[in-house]
């Protein structure tokens, strides 16, 4: 079905655009499944039965959105990934950066029990346990739980095994939600989020009701219903016909269809997803830095943004996190230089080199980008063959196989990205095999320094090294689009992983 995805969206764009010009707001052919006037209905792809209400193992967007409704994290991320308080009222390190004193605000779980420091310690210990299988495990693996303790009901001290003045970023990461101490069964979860559990069916609907005693005030909708719609075309149809109020993840091809509709609009968050190709620098041919630099010089990033992202995106400079805190704006944009690239290949004796570029439908931009990159690198004398792999296992496959593959990363704090993707110690998310003591030393020094300016300089140096030797060719940043009914106010464009994303408690039905 994926193979037909693009043509389907084109058909939809054309037909809906041509036919749906009438008074769509009045389309009352609802299924009538919604029982309440004030029930916000949101459509997500659920991809079947992998979903769970255990917030610590959540990997799908729908899991994260439901976790956000039912639970809270200690901190949250603003749009630039700076930290904002949620359950934590304050967080302060000692002089060494190894002991963090965290004070909790007064908040209650849905069963009326208070959120305590013991709940935080239990949740973090559970996340850090590899047996749980949490995607946030690497971020909390540096916590020494033997030494960490609750000093009162609302205060705790987390002790780290190494100094880290950027540690609070971990407390805002997805999958670090606080659950009541002792919770192992998430069949009917109890959290401290703005909505409380009513019902849930894997692959089907989840219904939550408002938790009036939420610390941030009662949510605006009386009820929230997550509905499962895996096909993007169906999510668009459901939104335009008024069956749902919010459709998550709308591809660039359907954006104009939704935007041209009188009853819906697109919320587009810029810089939301890094689009890149990972070249493996731990094996031939890219272990030769001249070959790596040749491909970095041979790619026309502007053309990729224009053609593949349909100009709905921003240019990349082989660096993660454009627009975020610690992004090194002073590093000049890498431009295409065909002659320089050819010279480097000649010098390396790699003229006419051929390799496969792994790609997949895991992201709608991967395959068109692969074709264009193959064409561009052909112009510097390389023979690049795009190889399409299955989307379901794509990211695991490219970790093990091949020498080059497309990848993407949603917005994270830059320090989290650098520690998860580039440091040798975190090889699980390292797609290029980059292993540099130079980078590691600078990164470790940066996070261990309390001086913000010094940290910024060190992180810039670390990123400069990774940019030239790390093997990640970042060609652009795509927008993140969601479709919203014009009946709904209060929702704003937001990048996934940020606090503002999927903030359904702030949505008001008109």
């Amino acid at each position, binding site marked *: 079905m994926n193979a037909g995805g693009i043509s389907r969206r084109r058909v939809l764009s054309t037909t809906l655009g041509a036919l749906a010009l009438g008074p769509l707001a009045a389309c009352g052919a609802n*299924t009538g499944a919604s029982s309440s006037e004030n029930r916000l209905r949101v459509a997500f792809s659920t991809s*079947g*039965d*992998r979903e769970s209400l255990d917030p610590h193992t959540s990997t799908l967007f729908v899991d994260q959105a439901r976790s956000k409704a039912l639970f809270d994290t200690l901190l949250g991320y603003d749009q630039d990934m700076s930290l904002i308080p949620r359950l934590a009222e304050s967080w302060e390190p000692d002089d060494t950066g190894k002991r963090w004193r965290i004070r909790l605000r007064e908040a209650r779980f849905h069963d009326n029990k208070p959120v305590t420091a013991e709940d935080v310690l239990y949740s973090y210990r559970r996340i850090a346990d590899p047996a749980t299988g949490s995607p946030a495990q690497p971020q909390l693996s540096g916590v020494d739980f033997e030494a960490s303790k609750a000093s009162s009901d609302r205060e705790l001290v987390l002790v780290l095994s190494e100094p880290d003045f950027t540690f609070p970023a971990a407390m805002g990461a997805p999958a670090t939600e606080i659950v009541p101490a002792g919770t192992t069964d998430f069949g009917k979860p109890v959290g401290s989020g703005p909505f409380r559990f009513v019902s849930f069916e894997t692959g089907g*609907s989840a219904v939550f009701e408002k938790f009036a005693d939420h610390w941030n005030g009662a949510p605006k909708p009386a009820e929230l219903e997550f509905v499962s719609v895996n*096909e993007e*075309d169906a999510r668009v149809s459901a939104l335009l016909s008024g*069956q749902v109020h919010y459709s998550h993840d709308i591809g660039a091809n359907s954006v104009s269809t939704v935007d041209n509709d009188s009853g819906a609009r697109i919320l587009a968050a810029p810089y939301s997803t890094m689009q890149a190709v990972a070249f493996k620098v731990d094996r031939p041919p890219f272990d030769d830095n001249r070959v790596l630099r040749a491909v970095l010089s041979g790619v026309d990033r502007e053309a990729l943004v224009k053609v593949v992202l349909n100009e709905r995106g921003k240019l990349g400079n082989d660096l993660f996190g454009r627009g975020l805190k610690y992004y090194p704006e002073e590093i000049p944009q890498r431009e295409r230089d065909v002659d320089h690239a050819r010279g480097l290949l000649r010098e390396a004796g790699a003229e006419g080199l051929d390799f496969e570029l792994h790609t997949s439908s895991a992201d709608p931009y991967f395959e068109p980008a692969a074709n264009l990159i193959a064409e561009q690198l052909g112009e510097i004398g390389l023979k690049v063959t795009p190889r399409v792999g299955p989307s*379901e296992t794509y990211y695991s496959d490219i970790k093990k196989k091949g020498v080059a593959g497309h990848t993407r990363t949603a917005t994270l704090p830059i320090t989290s990205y650098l520690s998860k993707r580039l440091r040798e110690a975190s090889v699980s998310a390292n797609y290029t095999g980059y292993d540099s003591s130079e980078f590691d030393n600078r990164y470790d020094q940066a996070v261990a320094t309390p001086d913000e300016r010094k940290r910024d300089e060190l992180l810039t140096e670390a990123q400069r090294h990774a940019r030239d030797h790390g093997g990640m060719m970042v060609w652009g940043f795509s927008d993140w689009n969601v479709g919203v009914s014009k009946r709904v106010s209060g929702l704003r464009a937001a990048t996934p992983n940020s606090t503002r994303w999927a903030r359904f408690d702030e949505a008001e039905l008109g």
Partner: protein
Amino acid sequence: MTLAYVPRRVAVAVLQILGVAVAVFALSALLPGDTAVVILGKHGTPEQIEALRQRLGLDEPFVRRLLTWFGGLAHGDLGTSLLTGAPVTAELADGLATTAVLTGVALAVIVPLALLIGVTTGLRQGSRLDRAVNSVIVVLDSIPEFALGLLLVALFSLRLGWLPATAAGLSGTSLATHPAVLVLPVVVLVCKQLCALARQIRIGVAEANTAEYTRHVRTHGLRESTVLFKHVLPNAAGPSVQQLARTVDGLLGGVVVVEALFALPGLGSGFVDAVMARDLPTVQGYALVFAGTTVTVNLLADIAAYRLVPRHRSAS
């Protein structure tokens, strides 16, 4: 003669189902990646993947897994979903109602409509009506399901607001209280599957209507209705019944697309989800149900067609 044919045909069907079961098991084992990789996603370390693989029994040899699966099948046990831990039969039961209703209603529309079209045009072969009706059903047949579905949604849901665009938020059981959501999916299935059956009936009727034996009975002064019901239709029925079996096969293929397009929680969308998640026992369960249905329907069609041939009927 018939008695000899039926057991032979049933034996072939049983062998076909066994062959399909082995093929399904082997092919699903050949799918790249496995459940452990999909469950852990891009965050899984090789150690975590290996540990989960062991826990799910994916590290066991192929032959042992095959024998265990067949052992379960013999007792009607299709195994347990690797993702949910629920019995595969329960997963299948969840989607069965939706798909059964969808294909059942589609079939209930297709059969009388195809008969009406096939007989009417078959008796008037070459007429203006014959050409016009054939053109329409051929055009409908040539439009892919997803494109037809999108067109119908754009017109009847978005433009006119008469019918719901999707079944978003409805479970299999709640569909009964919202029958309107089935209208567009059924129309898509009918448009796609009507053509072949109607044309087969038309050909059968036209041939039988101009055959020598029909001309012969007409010379005896029989009424046209008697000629039609006693001589033309029985002779046209055999190939048409076999085409009907292929129509059921086509419907089972069509529901995979239609259920995705209209967000219907049926066997087709469940099958796709199971493949995407590499939930092998569930994939095998779905494939077996689809294959078993196809083999059974074709078996019944073959037996019915055999019985409908007048010389076999008289021989028995």
